[in-house]
């Protein structure tokens, strides 16, 4: 053939228009450029100007076009016409749907607002949905944090005013040693990948601590294949090594943490374990200038880590002395923990030594003067280039709260939080527990709740208990069972509502949470609860309203389905009042806007709540004349005022000299201003305020100016969390409000004010010889949760989820490729395909979460591998621990926060015959949407 090349147009037209909005293929919230052709979505790429992703985009984000076009999209409101769970629906009008909802909810609100349980799952608009629930007057509101990562969030807030992900990030540009704990592949998706790329480029080192070596852990320079549930022990062993060697940042500890605060050490005192306070209630330290007592925040005070104080016969010692007593104990020596952690003692020492080497020998300084809250001027900022990041792997255990606390303690003793090279908070964080609201639960029929639902408790007086000591909330949040349940316990709602404890409810109203499938433990049991009838033939949970964009497993269990839009068809705000998208050097928020209009009879859920709120005459949603206050969510986003000058969006507010960021009046053109700016707003933190944020007056003043809070509120890190001690003291019999007897011992153990480690609670109640294997899940980088559909492109990458089995177990069972196994826990068993993985903790099996789907859902073919070979580990996990003979059933949750202890699971595994499909196989659901196309060749422009 000839060498003639065809003529090729190398400059074809790319698109008619680019519309910039925010991705919602996961919780990462990247900026996207949606290329439009002929009014249709043609191609999606990352927005280069956006602070979160700076142009890059993950597999999910690029596959958004298939989510938007998915055949599983709900098409119109649905009314159940068959039995619950059958999937028999008829399509109805919005007017009929909203009338049904109003007729159900109106009488509840007038008489017993608590009989509505409103839980909003993977909601990114909690400041709005919470406001709605508050107006309704029910105490029963939360999103999904209780079954996700509340341990991480709560431990971070109580300890240092923030944790990871939307709260904080490593200083990717300066850190030299980065340690990553228990991060599933999907979390903080693009920023972590971008950060790892930066580390690699600079030759910085990365250590992955995870039983599973995939994803981020696969590229880590060192992999620590830890035994699940022992991270806290490993961390405290490193704390032991560092303290024993004096490799701690004494100056930082003295100035910026409560290591210097004096604690009452008299066991006979009713103040035992509490801080010594002055008459203004300020915790006391010894001032090194005078040798005398002083308030922690006094002007010019130099807190002493060593000084003790004796008054009225009571000795008070600084927190740091207590830490020395505890962590220098041989109990935490590497040799003592090595076997349990599955990490040789020498390795633990080497890792601790390396942290010390990098934190102190590779310390550096930035020439940036700043002033602390005691008025002391600092010429420089001292860099400690070690940083950490962690997520569900350490938090989804029943010892997760204390483990997360232990990790923060390790960060803090190295002086590596909010310093160059360390971990940095993202505005509007950090914000200490004391700056957050307390939980509210006072119900008044026909009126709003007395305040925001969720918050931080500071002692028994803050628990939400009625006069008889019973929980006020259906999920038993803020009860003695889990006193610091800052995100509620969505995973307990169905179970409690079915059991009628603490009381019966009338209507369960949920959004965007697949509670009949991968978001619930004990899936089969949950199906029974949702469909169970009383002697009169009525459903035990009388009414269920659900909103989702797709034909998920949960849809079939609703009586009324309110179809939501896709993320490209809706308004949203990614608000500073909610889960912000800020970076350490900038405060930012963003919007979504309808880059295309829906082609179905669907409405954005938040707009539906605006309508419903007005129909119910709720404060904040109805005008005085009864008319609707906000026509839709966009109207709310623009016009709602939360505090003077502060609304859902902080950018482009109306100032005296035109649009301004931070505080300002309502700007009627705000959404268009965001659109014109690429869908987001960012303002950079001034250089001298970019570190030491909790302690820096430069930062504090800027934060007030921006409207994060209304007065400066500097604070010090709480290595010793006094509120924990107050709950512990109550369990010891101190104080008016007392826990029930059966919880005393557990509270004494778990509410320790200094981080401790105790074994996962399931281990105490399971025969570990019979169930020796740990079983975990993680989500892949290219697939997320299941709030979207089973995406046509992504399912070709992750359509199968075998159980990955380490070499030792693989060989012991004589497994071969193509084999299946029976996996059993004390609760149940599943039969599933297995695959060998060598890069795995020798005693751990795992699978991808939420790949398994139920037949009839997501518009998938019945023969789809997700429905035939796909499976959930959830069948093996119960929301309650196995009975231990005391007549009680204990929740399978962290006793501090109530976080679902997914990763405590213990199983045994044995070879099985090859079944027709994965077991248990659930009956098929009738699909409420049409058939999916067989073939796709999606090309918009021709």
């Amino acid at each position: 053939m000839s060498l003639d090349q065809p003529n090729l147009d190398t400059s074809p037209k790319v698109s008619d228009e680019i519309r910039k909005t925010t991705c919602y293929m996961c919780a990462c919230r990247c900026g996207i450029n949606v290329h439009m052709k002929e009014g249709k979505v043609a191609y999606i790429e990352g927005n280069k100007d956006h602070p979160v992703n700076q142009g890059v985009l993950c597999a999910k984000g690029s596959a958004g076009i298939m989510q938007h076009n998915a055949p599983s999209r709900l098409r119109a409101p649905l009314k159940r016409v068959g039995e619950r769970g059958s999937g028999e629906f008829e399509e109805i009008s919005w007017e009929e749907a909203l009338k049904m909802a109003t007729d159900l909810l109106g009488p509840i609100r007038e008489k017993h607002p608590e009989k509505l349980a409103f839980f909003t799952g993977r909601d990114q608009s909690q400041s709005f949905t919470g406001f709605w629930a508050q107006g309704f007057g029910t105490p029963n509101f939360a999103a999904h944090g209780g079954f996700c990562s509340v341990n991480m969030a709560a431990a971070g807030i109580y300890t240092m005013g923030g944790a990871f992900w939307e709260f904080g990030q490593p200083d990717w540009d300066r850190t030299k040693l980065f340690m990553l704990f228990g991060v599933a592949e999907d979390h903080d998706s693009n920023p972590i990948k971008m950060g790892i790329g930066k580390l690699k480029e600079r030759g910085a080192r990365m250590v992955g601590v995870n039983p599973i070596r995939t994803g981020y852990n696969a590229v880590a320079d060192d992999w620590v294949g830890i035994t699940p549930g022992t991270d806290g022990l490993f961390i405290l062993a490193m704390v032991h090594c560092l303290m024993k060697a004096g490799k701690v940042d004494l100056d930082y500890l003295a100035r910026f943490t409560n290591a210097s605060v004096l604690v009452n050490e008299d066991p006979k005192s009713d103040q035992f374990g509490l801080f010594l306070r002055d008459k203004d209630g300020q915790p006391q330290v010894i001032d090194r200038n005078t040798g005398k007592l002083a308030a922690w925040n006094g002007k010019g005070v130099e807190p002493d880590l060593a000084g003790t104080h004796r008054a009225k016969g009571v000795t008070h010692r600084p927190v740091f002395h207590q830490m020395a007593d505890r962590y220098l104990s041989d109990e935490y020596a590497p040799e003592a923990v090595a076997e349990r952690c599955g990490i040789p003692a020498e390795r633990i020492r080497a890792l601790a030594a390396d942290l010390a080497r990098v934190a102190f020998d590779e310390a550096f300084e930035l020439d940036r003067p700043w002033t602390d809250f005691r008025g002391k001027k600092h010429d420089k900022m001292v860099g400690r280039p070690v940083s950490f990041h962690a997520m569900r792997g350490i938090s989804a255990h029943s010892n997760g709260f204390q483990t997360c606390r232990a990790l923060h303690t390790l960060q803090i003793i190295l002086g590596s939080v909010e310093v160059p090279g360390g971990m940095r908070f993202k505005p509007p964080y950090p914000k200490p527990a004391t700056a957050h609201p307390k939980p509210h639960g006072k119900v008044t029929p026909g009126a709003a709740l007395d305040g925001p639902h969720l918050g931080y408790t500071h002692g028994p007086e803050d628990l939400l208990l009625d006069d008889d000591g019973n929980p006020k909330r259906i999920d038993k949040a803020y009860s003695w069972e889990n006193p610091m349940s800052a995100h509620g316990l969505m995973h307990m709602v169905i179970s409690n509502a079915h059991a009628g404890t603490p009381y019966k409810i009338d209507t369960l109203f949920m959004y965007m949470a697949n509670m009949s499938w991968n978001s619930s433990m004990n899936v089969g049991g949950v199906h029974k609860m949702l469909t169970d009838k009383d002697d009169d033939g009525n459903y035990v949970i009388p009414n269920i309203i659900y909103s989702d964009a797709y034909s998920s497993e949960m849809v079939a269990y609703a009586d009324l389905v309110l179809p939501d839009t896709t993320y490209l068809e809706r308004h949203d705000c990614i608000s500073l009042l909610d889960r912000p998208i800020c970076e350490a050097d900038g405060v930012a928020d963003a919007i979504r806007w309808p880059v295309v209009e829906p082609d179905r009879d669907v409405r954005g859920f938040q707009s539906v709540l605006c309508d419903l709120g007005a129909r119910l005459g709720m404060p904040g949603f109805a005008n005085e004349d009864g008319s609707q206050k906000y026509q839709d969510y966009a109207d709310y986003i623009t016009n709602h005022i939360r505090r003077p000058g502060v609304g859902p969006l902080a950018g482009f507010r109306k100032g005296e000299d035109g649009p301004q960021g931070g505080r300002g009046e309502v700007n009627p053109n705000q959404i268009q201003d965001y659109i014109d700016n690429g869908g987001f707003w960012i303002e950079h933190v001034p250089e001298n305020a970019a570190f030491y944020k909790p302690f820096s007056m430069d930062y504090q003043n800027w934060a007030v100016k921006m409207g994060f809070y209304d007065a400066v509120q500097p604070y010090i890190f709480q290595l010793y969390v006094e509120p924990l001690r107050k709950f512990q003291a109550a369990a010891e019999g101190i104080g008016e409000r007392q826990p029930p007897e059966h919880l005393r011992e557990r509270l004494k153990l778990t509410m320790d004010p200094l981080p401790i480690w105790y074994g996962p609670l399931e281990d105490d109640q399971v025969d570990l010889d019979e169930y020796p294997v740990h079983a975990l899940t993680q989500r892949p980088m290219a697939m997320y949760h299941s709030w979207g559909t089973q995406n046509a492109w992504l399912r070709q990458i992750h359509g199968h989820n075998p159980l990955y089995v380490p070499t030792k177990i693989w060989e012991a069972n004589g497994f071969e490729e193509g084999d299946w196994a029976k996996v059993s826990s004390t609760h149940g068993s599943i039969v599933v395909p297995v695959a060998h993985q060598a890069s795995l903790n020798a005693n751990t099996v795992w699978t991808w979460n939420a790949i398994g789907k139920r037949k009839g859902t997501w518009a998938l073919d019945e023969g789809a591998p997700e429905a035939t070979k796909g499976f959930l580990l959830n069948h093996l996990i119960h929301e309650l621990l196995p009975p231990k003979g005391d007549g009680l059933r204990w929740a399978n949750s962290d006793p501090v926060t109530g976080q679902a202890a997914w990763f405590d699971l213990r199983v045994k595994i044995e070879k099985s015959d090859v079944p027709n499909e994965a077991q248990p196989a659930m009956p098929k659901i009738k699909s409420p949407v049409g058939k999916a196309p067989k073939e796709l060749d999606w090309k918009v422009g021709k």
Partner: protein
Amino acid sequence: MTQLPPPSAKKLGLVIDLDTCVGCHACVVSCKGWNTENYGAPLSDQEAYGANPSGTFLNRVHSFEVQPDQGEAQLIHFPKSCLHCEDAPCVTVCPTGASYKRAEDGIVLVNESDCIGCGLCAWACPYGARELDAKEGVMKKCTLCVDRIYNENLPEEDRQPACVRTCPAGARHFGDLGDADSDVSKLVAERGGFDLMPEQGTKPVNKYLPPRPKDEMPEFDILAPYLEPIASDGKGFVGWLDKALSSLPGGAK
């Protein structure tokens, strides 16, 4: 059969860093999206929601476990697409001239209007980098985003392959491997970039950067001085603390 042009001075290609690739498949899907909408026929999917979904992809990530003689097993993520070989067997085998290598920059392309879908090129490619689109019946392959890299309708900074633009970890690099002074050539030189299966004699333009050695933390005895004990218990620690504090600025009170 089809002839190759004389070797071009300019050799455009990719450098893929196996040390950094976390296996996220961002490049796979970005490529799918761009090339479904652009160059030639869309990349179709059969049984898109069915029992055996199977579609056309120009770039795929494979993951391999490696068990070193000593130490822990490792997992390597290995993205693979057309390597734009200098001696491209897929071109010389093509009976119609549809498969060709561009004289000016070395990009290997398929002219779909001349492709009869015989599949010989896919057989000839030792890397399995070509896929016959089941709907259109034409051979699809990586175009190195020839419709992006010179595209005057795109901002200059976006004139790079979709997979490179989207890669979150920065594991993919695009440039002229024929120019020894280009960033990509320097990267290859610095990091010991290698050819995939050089024994095939195809002279691939794309290069891979090897994973750095793993699990090579210094032995503890080297680091031991950092953990030299200053105390054996809480009491001893407090004694040390008094001394240590007095040496801090503002100390010795």
